[in-house]
């Protein structure tokens, strides 16, 4: 992930202090997260639902 994008996303998430005090940790976290997302095979079938589902009437 590009360094400028990491900084932009970190600031948008309110992580100015972490960026200033632990810039390497922010970069490492962003790269790791990006790696996990890249390894996922998202379903292509439009009707594939997420889990857990919305189930009205079964809540608290």
């Amino acid at each position, binding site marked *: 992930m590009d360094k400028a994008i990491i900084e932009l996303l970190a600031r948008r998430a*309110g992580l100015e202090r*972490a960026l200033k005090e632990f810039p390497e*940790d922010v970069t490492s976290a962003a790269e790791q*997260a990006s790696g*996990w997302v890249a*390894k996922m095979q998202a*379903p292509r079938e439009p009707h*594939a639902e997420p*889990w857990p589902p919305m189930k009205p009437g079964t809540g608290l």
Partner: protein
Amino acid sequence: MTGLHWLTAAEAAEAIRGRKLSPVELTHALLDRIERLDTKLHVFIRLDRDAALESAKAAEAEITAGRPRGPLHGVPVGIKDIIDVAGLPTTCHSKILIDNIAAADAVCVSRLRAAGAIVLGKLSTHEFAIGGPSFDLPWPPARNPWNTAHHPGGSSSGSGSGVAAGLFPVALGSDTGGSVRNPASACGIVGSKPTYGLVSRRGVFPLSFTLDHVGPLTRTVSDNALMLDAIAGHDPLDAGSAAVPPGHYAAGLERGVRGLRIGFIRHFHETDLPADPEVAAGLENVAATLHKLGADIRDIRLPTLGEFGAVNRVILQSEAWAIHAPWLRERPGDYGQLARRRLLGGAFISAGDYVQASRRRLEMIAAVEDALREVDVLLCASAMDPPSRIEDAAETERTYPRQARTPFNVTGHPALAMMAGLSSAGLPLSVQFVARYFAEGMLFQVARAWERAAGTDEKHPRID
């Protein structure tokens, strides 16, 4: 009685019921052992000596009066320090919550007390159940009793180390990506993650709402079933709690495996994450032994560990970010580095990625359900390597993710990890069993068959 520290919970409870053992004598013996060994193992964050002795005296009085509370009457337990015990700090092994005193017991703790258990104190964990063995936290990391130069797994590290070392017979841990089964594997004991929703999470500090499970760590399969009997049950105030009847999990332990179909997921440790040769040989030995005992062993294929791991991490980091974002914004320096790096990841995962992971999750559930229509139980690796040296951060970072536990947090199926043998260096090797939803009894039945054949319950570290 001698050797009280190696009594199982079932043995101790029976001796106490029969008035052959006093709960006070047992608690004193364990407190003395803790005092002697915990300077090496760092299992406890908070030992509640006085309260434990008071509870033991009360337990003794109840037995004398003929009023046993339940199947764990007078049995000391340890509690992972992300689980609330009334009046004690729940620190999550972190500076962030160093002054956080629990107002009430977590549901799982109150159920243990109702069964008669005695709470000894709060146990080391990886920070917020996600960090790793860390030396930049307010307390040192727990160490492995088989060799204190090695890590004991985690995140329920104190639970695993303390049970294996004979500091207490049973403990509670939590498991979001394998955190009960990892220390069970590294410490050569039994750790189970029940079906999602079987044990209440109320009063347990969350890491990831849809992946978190509470589970027992014990030295025997029988004790694991006994603990699950005590803590399982519907909790109407836990949104994820399952309304299922009690399992009587210890009832079928000795049924054996003759005629059972066991699916061996070899690709996990052969091609997805090629295991250490001793780990692979250990798994083959477990499969061969169960076959000799009458089980039908078949090969099973599931999605790869890489895919399972990615889905687990995207969901976990997204949900953990929702919990930790305020502290990560305001107090990033109060986390240790490992937890900070892992928890910050959620800031870089989009809502769309989270939904895609949740959609892929349903496909993975279907794949495991399909497999469990062909077989009764799955057998696979837990850890791909014996535990590394605790101060070798690079090796720990390399080996920690080399595991096959996250798939069953993604799908919510019950899973149990236990000793498969010992490596040539004398460190525990492990195996994992997985069953259908709410079929923990079957899980224990197969695990007990392996335990009985291999004598894994008789193997203890020489820590004295």
